């Protein structure tokens, strides 16, 4: 049984009296422990698809199954990191993580939750900032807290909606490295990750598999397996000829997916 099974999903929006198809007949299966990226330009429905996986929206048609069970709303088996607004601004960094833990691990004692939050904040190197409020932190630090919270919740699935989209390139790469090393080094079974991005390099460096989506209506265009073995050394990898070759093919796909939009639209 696949970890996540998306069966023939369609999604509509009505905006200013016009019906607009965000997703049309999308089907996709994701295996346990897989790192999958949804890649596409804006309007391709990648974030909508993720919000359906989150359980925040219900599709007009089709179903999503996780471990064979139909998704009808948010669940304790999924943790989410958004581009913005993941954190509650009135809670300190640590309180945010503790609050996340409280939602999934109700059996832990107060001390255990505190200790767990501290452990994960240490993993994202924010021990010195744990008593700061989100607005007192930089964008990169806020996303690190959000990642710490998502990982500390110890869910089997991690859903990430352009989590590094608002960061400067340098911070972005350093957070990609951090995410990958945390994902790989976790005890027990690896989490299944669904990662939404419009950044080709980010998708290649992080993913096992890349789903290229196309807009108008949002649907899956192509699916690509990333051939580079793990662990990946970011700086060494992007210098190789194989990487450049793979990247240019992917960019071409990406470009074609967008071109298709212009033909249709």
């Amino acid at each position, binding site marked *: 049984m696949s970890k996540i099974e998306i069966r023939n999903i369609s999604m509509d929006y009505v905006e200013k009296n016009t019906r607009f198809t965000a997703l049309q007949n999308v089907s996709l299966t994701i295996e346990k422990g897989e790192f999958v990226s949804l890649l596409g330009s804006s309007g391709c429905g990648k974030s909508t698809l993720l*919000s359906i996986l*989150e*359980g*925040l929206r219900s599709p007009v048609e089709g179903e999503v199954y996780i471990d064979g069970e139909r998704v009808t709303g*948010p*669940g*304790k088996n*999924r*943790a*989410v990191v*958004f581009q*913005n*607004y*993941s*954190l*509650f*601004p*009135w*809670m300190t960094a640590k309180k945010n993580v503790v*609050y*996340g833990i409280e*939602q*999934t691990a109700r059996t832990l004692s107060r001390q255990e939750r505190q200790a767990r939050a501290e452990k994960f904040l240490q993993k994202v190197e924010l021990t010195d900032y744990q008593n700061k*409020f*989100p*607005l*007192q932190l930089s964008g990169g630090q806020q996303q690190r807290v959000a990642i710490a919270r998502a990982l500390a*919740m110890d869910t089997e699935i991690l*859903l990430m909606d352009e989590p590094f989209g608002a960061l400067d390139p340098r911070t972005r790469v350093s957070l990609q490295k951090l995410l990958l090393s945390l994902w790989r080094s976790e005890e027990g079974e690896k989490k299944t990750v669904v990662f939404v991005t419009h950044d080709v390099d980010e998708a290649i460096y992080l993913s096992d598999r890349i789903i290229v989506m196309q807009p108008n209506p949002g649907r899956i265009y192509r699916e690509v397996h990333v051939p580079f073995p793990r662990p990946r050394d970011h700086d060494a990898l992007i210098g190789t000829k194989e990487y450049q070759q793979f990247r240019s093919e992917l960019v071409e796909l990406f470009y074609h997916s967008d071109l298709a939009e212009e033909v249709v639209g």
Partner: protein
Amino acid sequence: MTWRKRFLRIPHIWFLALLLIQLLPDAKEGDYYPVYVIGSAVILELFYLLVSLFSRKKETISETGKLLSVVEILVLLWVLFGPKLDRLNAKMFPAPGIVFHQFIEDTQPLLAAVWISFRTILEGFLLALVIAVPMGLILGWFKAVRSTASYVVRFVSAIPPIVYIPYAIALFPSMNAAKVFIIFVASYWPILSGTMTGVVNIDRGILDSARALGVGHLSMLLHVILPGALPYIFNGMNQGLGISFILLTSAEMIAADPTNPGLGFYIWNYSNFANYKRVIPAIIVLGITICLISFVIKKIQDLLLRWRAPV
């Protein structure tokens, strides 16, 4: 800070002027209690010297100085146009010394009146807070009732609460209960509408984040919606408090209750007897009381909303 920066400041001149002006002859014979003016000036000066001596920040010293200057210049003009030149109506504006003397004489009944007014406000306001906030959270949260509720709130809060005073007096068994009710009504609507606005204005993204975490209903209300709406709740509270002060004094004047004399009654009563030397201290005390309450609320607000300001 150098010695000069600490102590070489203009407010000291006003202090000296206040002392020296007493050397001028009075326009008319009479006891104007100049000792009380000098005494007050000395107390202010001592306070300023202490601030100048111990304050670490230059701004604190200069701000305190400016504030004291305003008070001292006012008293200076009062002395000058009052007893010294006799340009002020002595009945309406008794000499400052006389007022200060009366102030000291009346400390006991003044404090009692402050306490009664303060208690009335506190009871009415807390009652409104305890009922309006949960109701506002619920009315703001459920879309089905939100817009209807907001029309009702807009209509009712447009009515000046002063019209309820006769009703309250007729309906309630005691004047005290009537006054508490009026404060309650006056602060209820601003707090309710502030809370509803706050709930509606919480970022969708934050609510989605909470939903995605799988937060339960109660925790959603207590840990997400309440703190998210808090900035607007404080707006409503401050509005409600402002109206409460106005209404309390009006209510105390209209619902005159000599057995429970609050500050409003105190002022009203002595005005009726044209006893202005007792009215002025009461007005000053009323101003100070309102400032103190607002100050305390501001401090609580800054503490609870400290997450809003990046440090």
